[in-house]
């Protein structure tokens, strides 16, 4: 049962609304206490439609009903009211909860971060201007309002009801035992993809093993050679981490999803669903990442590009799991950017995505070229022909144009409701051409606040 249905049907807490049951509108947002980067509990907004009840083991949850204490409204509620941030009011409780989190976030220091904080909440009435005004008023104000998040307790859990089994092991040994007993169980972490089977297709999933109790999977560490990112690291945590360490990856993560999804979605989840339009695969493949796979017998490593063996298929064997990815430190001489093209900038699935990594020697000759594309084939793929057209040649507009031409033989994309084959092909080539221009002066440029497209002009990079 999802948290949303539990709140509405069992607890009559109907302030939390169902707008889509797929995490695309935010009307069901609630706040959950999670551990922050500093080890202290913080409020995080999540979509209650994509959280199964056992995933809340040991966690403190607040719904919109909790915010009004007696006759006193929370500052997020006051600012929304005063700004006329509600018209029909149906999206409002969810927006209030996203804004509630925002009041305690001290890092919303750029306009785009506020957009990112609220882009998971659709409003069909207001056109957003008054909501933005309200959010700007309260974001980061940290009101002394008595809403102290409780420290999460152990998530360890074994639960069986109505023929369904949900187990959250606290150790790997417990995990192996569970898998020995139930080799047909499915893994889940944040559940932002898996829960759709329940909320959209009304599937009954008999056996689930949650990996959220394995704290090792949430670790990020670094050596001189590489970054090791645990598979249980949330996209939100990856965003914070990559901002300074892996700027090319950060660009992909920024438009990865809405805040609520970023809080629940994980690195491992995004990789193991092996979707051809997943956003991390092209980014991480372009960076030369390796998948670290563990089974009872030990660990093995495969290059991430070999991890995806077919449409929604990975190299994981039964009773194996992805524990981390290791991402080599990008060379300072390398040009690296990730791109995402979708119908809407925010909260959308890629039509075409790409991760590019090109290194050159002192003479300006290409030594490494990894051009990975999503949305162009049944899996994320490197553009072998285009890469071959670059390696050993001078990094020049002329050679990039030749490589862009070679993409036509590398890929035969499909037409679907996100874009036609012709559009995908044209964009794929244009991204490569644009990459050349964008990295002329700055080799791993960040994304500006008011950028026009996923790929920026050299001029935009210059002016930020």
């Amino acid at each position, binding site marked *: 049962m999802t948290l949303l249905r539990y709140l509405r049907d069992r607890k009559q807490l109907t302030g939390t609304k169902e707008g889509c049951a797929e995490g695309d509108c935010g009307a069901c947002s609630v706040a959950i206490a999670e551990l922050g980067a500093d080890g202290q509990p913080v409020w995080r907004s999540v979509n209650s439609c994509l959280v199964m009840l056992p995933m809340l083991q040991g966690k403190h949850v607040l719904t919109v009903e909790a915010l009004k204490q007696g006759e006193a409204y929370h500052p997020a*509620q006051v600012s929304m009211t005063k700004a006329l941030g509600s018209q029909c009011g149906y999206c409002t409780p969810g927006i209030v909860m996203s804004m509630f989190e925002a009041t305690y976030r001290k890092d919303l220091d750029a306009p785009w971060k506020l957009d990112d904080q609220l882009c998971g909440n659709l409003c069909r009435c207001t056109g*957003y201007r008054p909501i933005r005004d309200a959010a700007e008023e309260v974001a980061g104000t940290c009101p002394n309002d008595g809403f102290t998040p409780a420290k999460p307790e152990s998530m360890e859990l074994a639960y069986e009801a109505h023929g369904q089994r949900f187990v959250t092991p606290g150790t790997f040994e417990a995990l192996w035992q569970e898998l020995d007993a139930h080799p047909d169980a499915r893994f889940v972490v944040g559940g932002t993809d898996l829960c759709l089977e329940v909320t959209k297709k009304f599937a009954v999933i008999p056996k689930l093993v949650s990996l959220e109790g394995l704290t090792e999977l949430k670790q990020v560490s670094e050596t001189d050679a590489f970054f090791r990112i645990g598979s249980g690291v949330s996209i939100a945590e990856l965003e914070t981490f990559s901002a300074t360490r892996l700027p090319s990856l950060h660009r992909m993560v920024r438009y990865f999803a809405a805040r609520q999804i970023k809080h629940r979605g994980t690195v491992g989840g995004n990789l193991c669903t092996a979707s051809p339009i997943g956003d991390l695969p092209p980014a991480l493949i372009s960076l030369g990442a390796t998948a670290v796979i563990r089974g009872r017998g030990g660990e093995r490593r495969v290059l991430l590009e070999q991890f995806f063996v077919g449409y929604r298929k990975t190299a994981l064997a039964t009773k194996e799991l992805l524990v981390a990815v290791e991402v080599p430190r990008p060379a300072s001489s390398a040009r690296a950017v990730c791109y995402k093209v979708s119908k809407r900038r*925010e909260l959308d699935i890629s039509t075409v995505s790409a991760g590019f990594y090109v290194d050159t020697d002192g003479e300006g000759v290409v030594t490494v070229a990894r051009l990975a594309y999503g949305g162009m084939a049944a899996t994320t793929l490197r553009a072998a022909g285009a890469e071959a057209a670059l390696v050993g040649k001078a990094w020049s507009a002329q050679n990039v144009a030749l490589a862009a031409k070679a993409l036509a033989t590398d890929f035969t994309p499909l037409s679907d409701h996100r874009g036609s084959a012709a559009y995908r092909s044209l964009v794929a080539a244009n991204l490569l051409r644009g990459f050349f221009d964008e990295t002329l002066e700055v080799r791993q440029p960040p994304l500006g606040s008011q950028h026009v*497209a996923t790929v920026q002009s050299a001029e935009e990079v210059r002016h930020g």
Partner: protein
Amino acid sequence: MVENPGSPLHQPLLHESAQRHASGEAKYVDDFPAPAGMLVAQAAGGSHARGRIRSVDISKAKLVPGVVAVLTARDIPGQNNVGPVIHDEELLASQQVHFLGQPVVLVVAESLEACRAGVAAVKIDLEASAPIVTIEQAIAAGSWLSDEHRMQRGDVGAALATADVRFQGEVRTGGQDHFYLETQVTLAIPEENRALKLYCSTQHPSEVQAIVAHVLHCGRHQVVVEVPRMGGGFGGKETQAAPWAAMAALAALKTGRPVKVWLNRDQDMLLTGKRHPFLTKFDVGFSKDGTLVGLDAQLVSDGGFSNDLSRAILDRALFHSDNGYFLPHVRLTGRVAKTNLPSNTAFRGFGGPQGMALIEDLISRFCERTGLDPVEVRRKNFYGAAPRNLTPYWQEVKDNRLPRIFDELLASSDYTKRRAEVAAFNAKSTSSKRGLALTPVKFGISFTTGFLNQAGALVVLYADGTVQLNHGGTEMGQGLHTKMLAICAHELGVLPENVRVMNTSTEKVPNTSATAASSGADLNGQAVKNACETLRSRLAPIAARLLGGADERELVFRGGHVFLGEHPEQWVAFDALTSEAHLAQVSMSATGFYRTPDITFDRNSGRGKPFHYFAYGAAVCEVELSALTGEHRLRRVDILHDVGNSLAPTIDRGQIEGAFIQGVGWLTSEELRFDAQGFLRTHSPDTYKIPAFGDAPREFHVALLQNAAQYDVVHGSKAVGEPPLMLALAVVAALRDAVTAFGPKGREVKLDMPCTAEALLFAVEAQRQ
């Protein structure tokens, strides 16, 4: 702002439900606690978009645990029809299905899970035939829902033959899902003596009542429909709440238990109608200086499988194919195509946007071809003095505010300077170009079906001086209740906190029109005013007596007191007055009524005065467009809009901003993709993209036209719901302007609406060829 001390009218009001919205206390139909024994119902439909029903097998569905009843067309006691105007739409299909998933069987069960299992167990055997899913297919097959409707004036053939610049072509606009955040829902509760109470999310409770009565074969007095509030409507709950309400009512009557019908998001998007896509063929002529000399256009809309409101929507498209421009010689024809898709319906603008999109596109194309300044060409063609004041439907345009709006907006938006900046940017930039455009809106206010222009109210006074306000309009977020509350408080001179706006109910105000056509405040406001005037006239003699025999004509009702205009120190408190009136045996409830005068239109001749007045506005939009991906950003928007003397300027600003962004969605990112089988591939927000937070421009300047009192409308105000949606056409004009910068001068941009990233990238490619 109009000065009015002590009255909420014309003041910067908050939404009357704002605090309850923010606290989660505001109740919508699906939030009501389930009444004891409540069941849920869901429809089972066929797996083809078009076909004859060979057989329906419900035997297995009846056996599913938790299923209480399985109903088909044969179980309907009255008429199996929910068509609102033309009765061409079955509640449960009996012989043929006309779109994918059209309801054939209604499964009623103890839980949603049981209901879904029951639906899955229904077997519907169809003899399928090839569905018609595009306007082109419908035209080729001669598949129509209406005859051709025509409006004309002058000699268009001769005018076009002698035009300096003449061109032909097509203009396309796309559909749009309403995407109200609250999906369709009704809770039906059986009452004694076979009566029914319905809680329904609808803009048209009286029509739901009428249709339920038809379906159940009972008098309307047996059916009460109550609307607490809607989580958005936008036209999508004008006619299209009725089928689901009728299903709930039928199931409640058959089982004797309360029944809820609630659509999830996918069901709502797959099964309900949307904004009509249009395909228009045109032949247009201009003089060398940019004056429009003739337009011959054939508009075809995609009505879906049934008429619904399609004819009136098509009419309104014809009524707005002139926008603010005088067409000396014009012939407009319109026809509704029949396709095997859900029946398309009302959506904010009601055909007006599609008509306006046509003429704005033609002016843009003319300027692209000739290089003339689009602002000057638009201004040159505005309605003027006679004979340049006559619309294609022969109504005279009086009090044209567009020239004033253009002048003020050009100055406030710094248009001329920015035009030069855009040119300078485009001269340097290769991978992206900027575009700038100014477009006007002139929108006719009134239901074009004359008799609908009426409204009622019921105002109830209690002896303690508090007020219950009932009126015929529904609240869907637009702030109607806030405005009605302000009018009521103003007229009675009471404090707003002593007025409670009641849920809209057919038992309080009968025979209402839909809350639609932007008319809610105009019509209901007059009715509320009328009711309050009646009450005031009854209270005045008592007040005069309490004030020592004052002249009733000098009494002022304001701020919870009644006083003498010349002597505000002589007053009586409103609650003391009502208490005294009760003792004096005065009737303290009153109805109010209003009908718009002088609305006449003869559909056959295409002539008359269909509109009480026009609302005006204009927008300046600046965009930047990438030639690498087709993505764009809306850099800045300046809007000046005419709402008369605003009843509530804060509410009206919200309507303008919200409508504009909704229009931007229609014209850019929102794309409905049906496949050849009539299945909507984009049936959830995963694939159907309405504007999100970052799509709202950071520079977004909205101003209301000042000193703009409208004659003969309540307190000098004007309708606001729909007109600003069409301001978004300035985004299309600006995008086209940006595309022109990629190619040689004098080349027409090839761009249909919606202007998705893909459409824009290919437009740029074509421009560069």
